[in-house]
């Protein structure tokens, strides 16, 4: 490649895909190297904002369905590692960087109150690494590279969760459980990759797709598929594999919970999408493996079981964690429908749920900051003392239910549409029913916040602006995307079509 004498110098624009990952990746060691606590936060924020800008630029370039390919090291794809940006992952990148840019200002106060000051530098470095890993997973076009960056983000996540131990020591065991589960998941993923490699001899996603298509389904490829799905399922917290999630979300520091809830599982779902649709051809796997009938019941089970558990929680934060599992069920349902609309719904819900959950967890974080706990009887009546925070929580809650006019409504609506389109109307009813469950658990929160008297002797101040503003940006986003439907839906549709086109979309 580089042997050619006529070398065209690359411009900054050409480098955008790599810069997307490189900026946070290089920031993490810089933070450690400089080691000054005053600069740490600013550095992290600048890096995150920069990658947000890059993500927007990338999304603008690929929204029309085109694909950017970047060859790292100048080696052509089957040999070297390739970055490949299309509508789907640009969308995910946009979500991840956007959330991280909003979380960082929020984190400043929240981290100060939850983590000892001497650990702040390393905390932000770990945060940057987590961001790097998620971005790297989302952007890459190489199957093994997914594993490497997945591990970067996972390791950083374990550490970040464990930082909750200064508030509650159970954060440590939560992190440990997640570490074991996550590592098993990653190892399963590697086994799957190994089998794929054995069957095809390549690791590049596009190349893999081609060669699997040529080969048809043999048993090795099928087993590989199973391992990859289970491995990713552990990271996504698909219903029976979800055990780590509630604990991890509950005990992690608030800022970390916001970030993880809004991005980590979403990126894992993206990987699942990428593998099922781009690498294993949809036609192949759904005819041969009848995956839909495996995923579908679990998705529905998740929607109901997790919602039920959420209703009976007495801890706001844990309630939200269980509701996350239920919401993941919606996304999986969309995927298992296998239609254009279904996928659009899944991707749109991925985005909408991301911002909704971020709003809610930010709200919880603020309540925790002021009241010292997220149990219902700790936070009761705070709707009066902290009106802004509580209002944002209500907006988030409404979006979680899927009330018209909020982002959550759009994706659920499209999902119902998709099920009807496919003729599975019982499932549409189930979706509506499970939304009713959401009404119950959200109502409990609203009741606690507004209808109960504040605890005697407490007079909480409203949250600092650095926390309120990010939260309100997200809350307003929930409303904005509830009305301006075409933005998310266009991008999701472009992504869905790209995915459904299978490897053709990759070429």
């Amino acid at each position, binding site marked *: 490649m*580089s042997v050619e004498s006529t*070398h065209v110098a690359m411009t900054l624009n050409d480098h955008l895909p790599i810069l997307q990952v490189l900026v946070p990746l290089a920031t*993490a060691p810089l*933070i*450690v190297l400089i080691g000054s606590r005053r600069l740490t936060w600013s550095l992290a924020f600048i890096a995150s904002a920069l990658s947000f800008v890059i993500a927007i630029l990338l999304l603008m370039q690929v929204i029309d369905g085109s694909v950017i390919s970047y060859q790292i*090291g*100048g080696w052509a794809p089957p040999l070297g590692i390739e970055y490949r940006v299309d509508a789907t992952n640009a969308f995910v990148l946009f979500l991840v960087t956007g959330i991280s840019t909003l979380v960082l200002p929020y984190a400043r106060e929240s981290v100060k109150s939850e983590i000892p000051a001497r650990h702040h530098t390393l905390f932000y470095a770990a945060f940057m690494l987590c961001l790097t890993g998620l971005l790297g997973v989302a952007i890459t076009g190489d199957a093994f590279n997914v594993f490497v960056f997945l591990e970067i983000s996972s390791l950083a996540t374990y550490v970040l969760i464990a930082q909750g131990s200064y508030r509650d020591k159970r954060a440590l065991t939560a992190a440990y459980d997640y570490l074991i589960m996550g590592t098993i998941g990653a190892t399963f993923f590697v086994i799957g990759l190994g089998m794929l490699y054995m069957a095809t001899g390549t690791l590049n996603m596009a190349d893999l797709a081609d060669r699997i298509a040529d080969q048809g389904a043999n048993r090795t490829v099928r087993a590989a598929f199973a391992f990859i799905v289970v491995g990713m399922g552990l990271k996504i917290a698909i219903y029976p594999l979800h055990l780590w999630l509630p604990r991890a979300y509950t005990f992690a520091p608030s800022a970390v919970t916001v970030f993880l809830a809004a991005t980590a599982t979403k990126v894992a779902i993206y990987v699942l999408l990428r593998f099922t649709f781009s690498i294993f051809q949809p036609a192949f796997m759904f005819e041969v493996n009848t995956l839909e009938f495996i995923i579908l019941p679990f998705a529905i089970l998740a929607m109901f079981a997790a919602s039920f558990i959420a209703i009976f929680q007495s801890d706001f934060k844990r309630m939200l964690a269980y509701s996350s599992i239920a919401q993941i069920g919606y996304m999986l349902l969309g995927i298992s429908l296998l239609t254009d609309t279904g996928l659009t719904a899944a991707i749109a819900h991925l985005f909408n749920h991301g911002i909704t959950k971020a709003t809610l967890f930010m709200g919880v974080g603020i309540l925790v900051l002021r009241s010292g706990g997220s149990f219902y009887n700790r936070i009761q009546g705070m709707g009066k003392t902290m009106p802004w925070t509580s209002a944002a929580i209500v907006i988030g809650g409404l979006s979680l239910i899927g009330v018209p006019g909020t982002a959550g409504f759009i994706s659920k609506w499209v999902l119902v549409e998709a099920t009807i389109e496919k003729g599975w109307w019982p499932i549409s009813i189930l979706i509506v029913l499970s939304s009713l469950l959401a009404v119950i658990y959200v109502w409990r929160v609203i009741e606690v916040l507004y209808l109960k008297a504040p605890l005697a002797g407490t007079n909480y101040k409203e949250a600092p602006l650095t926390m309120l503003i990010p939260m309100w940006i997200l809350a307003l986003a929930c409303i904005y995307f509830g009305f301006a439907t075409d933005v998310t839906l266009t991008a999701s549709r472009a992504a869905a079509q790209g995915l459904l086109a299978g490897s053709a979309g990759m070429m």
Partner: protein
Amino acid sequence: MRHHLILRVITKLLVGAIMLFAFYVQFHGDFSPGGGFQAGVIMAVAFILYGLVFSLHDVQQVFPPWLVHKLIALGVLLYAGTGVVSMFLGYGFLDYGAFTPDHPAHGQHYGIFAVELGVGITVTAVMVAIYYAFASRPPRLSDEEW
């Protein structure tokens, strides 16, 4: 084990050899098995051996923790920096051909050298840092099932 004569003397003799071996593995990764990672581990093992036989205090004097922590970051930056330099030269990230456009293979040599050095530095520092972290915790002596 400060009073432990044989171990002390032998360690003193060996540590140098082990470090030299680490450098050898580092710089001969192109020709024989080994490379930055392995070299880093061996280097760290040399320090760990010294720490085990002498004392954590001594080894932390020789290789102070603040330096270790800076080096952790420096190695990654060296690696990433190699890529960034190639980007500034108008080539792709980590395209070592950029260093000597007339003779790409040479550029590859330099690139690989720099990159391996980065890996080596980070790995050494991280392993030593982990050792320090574990060793400097006060041990727990409550159970007596010996």
